[in-house]
């Protein structure tokens, strides 16, 4: 089937499932979190009989993503599954792609609702805020100073989670004080150095929360051989493979995450469902996501994966991603 010569098919035109072509566009390549998503996504694509490809910039910037969105439009792909580096900056490009017949599904990090067909939400903000708040409160005995080690200052999901987290903690645990938010830009070295700086500038720090897989791993690595090991608690969102060692050596007690593999799978099924015309993407539409079961589209075209899962020494060996 020739899908690439003309990008001019009008939006909403349905592709039959055997000439389905899906492009996965993560925030950046070389990020273990998205590698896990890619495994789920490509498996789903295979199950659907769709042609599948992952592309992306090496650095997590919106302008880098725009080039790939444009390329997908030029190639006339049926669907684009994207985690946005900026909610607005890539909007126009996405809409242009949609005008060229490309179905756009965001996952992990959303754009403005009017420039995508669906958003696959890994966990709702309240759920993430709650699980992180409860974990850190438990680990530091519900009182003390806590700092946040976030990803880049512009990451949509991070900022929303952090706000909700701060609000939740302030309401639920009045003796915990959130003293600072620092940014490691999802770079190992920067997150590592930021951890060092946090520890030095805040001698009374009781805990660090890092809602990003790169950040929590780097922080754990710094803590594991510093004097603060065992003194300062660390939790947040991490992948089992990266955190296994630190759970084992006691640097980290417990952390949370959803399964990014499932997230990729769900996003791919959703994209296929819209692209083939199976659903419109309106509130209340339901579709099947293979082994994951049935999902329903919520308000604003959001599909929710489920609640985050807590990993600790007892269960971590059961997971490989």
């Amino acid at each position, binding site marked *: 089937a020739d899908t690439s010569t003309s990008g001019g098919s009008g939006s909403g035109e349905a592709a039959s499932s055997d000439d389905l072509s899906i492009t996965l566009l993560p925030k950046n*390549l070389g*990020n273990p979190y998205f590698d896990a998503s890619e495994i789920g996504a490509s498996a789903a694509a295979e199950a659907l009989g769709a042609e599948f490809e992952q592309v992306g910039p090496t650095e997590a910037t919106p302008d880098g993503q725009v080039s790939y969105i444009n390329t997908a439009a030029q190639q006339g792909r049926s669907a684009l599954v994207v985690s946005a580096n900026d909610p607005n900056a890539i909007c126009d490009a996405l809409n242009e792609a949609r005008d060229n017949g490309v179905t756009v599904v965001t996952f992990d990090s959303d754009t403005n609702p009017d420039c995508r067909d669906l958003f696959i939400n890994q966990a709702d903000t309240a759920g993430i805020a709650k699980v992180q708040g409860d974990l850190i409160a438990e680990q530091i005995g519900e009182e003390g100073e806590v700092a946040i080690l976030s990803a880049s200052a512009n990451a949509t999901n991070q900022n929303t989670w952090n706000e909700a987290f701060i609000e939740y903690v302030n309401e639920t645990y009045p003796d915990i004080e959130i003293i600072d938010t620092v940014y490691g830009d999802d770079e190992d070295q920067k997150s590592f*150095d930021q951890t*060092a700086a*946090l520890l*030095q500038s805040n001698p009374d720090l009781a805990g660090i929360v890092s809602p990003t897989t790169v950040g929590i791993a780097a922080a754990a690595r710094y803590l594991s051989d510093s004097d603060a090991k065992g003194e300062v608690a660390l939790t947040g969102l991490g992948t089992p493979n990266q955190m296994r*060692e630190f759970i084992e050596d006691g640097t980290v007690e417990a952390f949370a995450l959803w399964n990014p593999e499932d997230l990729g799978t769900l996003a791919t099924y959703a994209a296929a469902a819209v692209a083939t015309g199976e659903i419109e993407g309106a509130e209340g539409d339901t579709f099947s996501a293979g082994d994951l079961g049935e999902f329903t589209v919520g308000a604003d075209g959001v599909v929710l994966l489920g609640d985050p899962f807590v990993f600790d020494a007892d269960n971590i060996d059961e997971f490989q991603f």
Partner: protein
Amino acid sequence: MTTTIDISAGTNRVRAFLSGGRMRELGILLALGLVILAATLTNPKFLFSGDGWRDLLLTPAPLLLVTIGQAFVIITRNVDISVGSIVGLTAYMTGWLFATFPGIPIPLVVLASVLFGAFLGLVNGALVAFAKVPAMVITLGTLYAFRGINVLWTGSDRINPSDMPKPFLAFGTAQFLTIPVLTIVAVAVLVVAAWYLANMRSGRELYAIGSDPQAANLYGLKTTRRVLTAFIVSGTLSGLAGVFYAARYGTVDSQAAMGWEFNAIGAAVIGGVAIVGGVGTVWGAAIGAFLLMTINRALPIVGIPDFWQQAVVGVLIIGAIVLDRVLALRQKRRLIETRDNA
């Protein structure tokens, strides 16, 4: 008779040290002292805590190595913009060797990575020296090419601490008499490099080549070989820095050490290595590297908000080179005055 000559030569040297060439190093050293003092006064932990003391010495170590190599290259009136990519590539290579050949002896890995760095330096040097083309263009090209190879090789893989043996990672933070081992290695390299540049014929020839390449040709100096050597030194030290990076940070992906080229060049220039070649010492360059990294670490401590730190780093870089220039001009004026009065 001999003693008097010795004394006068000695005092001459002291005077030359204070008034002339070493002024720049002293100024930068002073700035470094002030930064450490300011940070320590704000938060004594910056210096007086196990982690603080260790990090103060340890953090600059990899950049120190890269800057020494960069100084070699800049002194010959060349520049190596590809160092960040070399560090990234060799850091990945280090992790990859451990991950792919479990049980491989650590010294073998270190050697392999350093040799790999030397090889990448050789590629740069051969292109620059034999084709006689501007180093800036070549190394800008290899900056892209090496990073591209790195991304291709790494893909979306990454090295995690669990991929590397514990003793190797421990080496990243190991201390000897409270001084980090990596720092000791870097300073040892520095001492050897400084001695070589000051006291060996081939070292002095690097300065001559940078001072006037055409004159070097007329003198019959082995320009090609020396420039090649400078690039190999830069590559080798960047390779060693890659090993340091892997040991210290434990995690390596395809973007490791991105942008280090500007840090290394900036550090060398702050330390008084003239970008047009022929002038400067590795001491100065090393202090420059120390200053740059320490500023980075001190800013959050003295309470500069996260978002403004980079701006402050920029101001400090410019401030350092302006100060250096002002001192040099004052020096020159004083020379003229003494000439007038003579």
